[in-house]
């Protein structure tokens, strides 16, 4: 695999991951955009599994619940909330 192809593959994987966390873990009120800041954790794709995604997701959920003075129900918050029932 040439370097160029490998670079393209890495970019494709990063795009997909950013999209994935944007629509699941780190949803926000706009529901159509994702914060580019999460790219920080995809810089080196071999290190992605070294991060505590669970803790980050929970922190985000708490924060969103705090902010939730109006409609602000992400898929994930639903997912976790149902467990409580």
């Amino acid at each position, binding site marked *: 695999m040439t370097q160029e*192809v490998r670079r393209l593959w890495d970019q494709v994987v990063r795009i997909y991951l950013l999209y994935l966390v944007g629509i699941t873990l780190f949803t926000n009120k706009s529901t159509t955009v994702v914060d*580019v800041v999460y790219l920080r954790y995809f810089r080196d*794709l071999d290190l992605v599994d070294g991060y505590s995604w669970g803790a980050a997701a929970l922190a985000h959920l708490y924060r969103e619940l705090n902010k939730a003075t109006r409609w602000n129900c992400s898929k994930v918050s639903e997912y976790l909330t149902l467990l409580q029932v």
Partner: protein
Amino acid sequence: MHDNDTTPIMVARWWRHRLQDTDLSWLQDTSYSLIDHGLICAFVERWHEETSSFHLPFGEMTVTLKDVSCLLHLPIDGMLQSHEAITRDDAVEWMVEYLGSNPGEALVEVTRTKGAHCRFSYLRRIFKDRMLEKLALET
């Protein structure tokens, strides 16, 4: 993201391995299509910021790390994520470097979203673009 053009990639073995290595691949199968807004609202009303828990008639209840780990199969150990918000300029730079965005397009994204954000529609489009670029290189 899933359509006729991209499906061959999504089922490729290397792709699945690559995603499994990130520990995030479970998220692909994790979402509710049916959301009970009434139920969520009832819970949100009982959320208390000071204790980060729901106050229910029979006591307090909250979502724990263990719940996250059991339900979403995400790693709960490892490095903690910590970051400050980034500027629009940083966002453009990162998109160019890590996603291979065109600088002009990246600038349009941060301007349109009024912050260091980009739209899902944009991500879908460049996902496909990169695939085509890669195919062109191989043939």
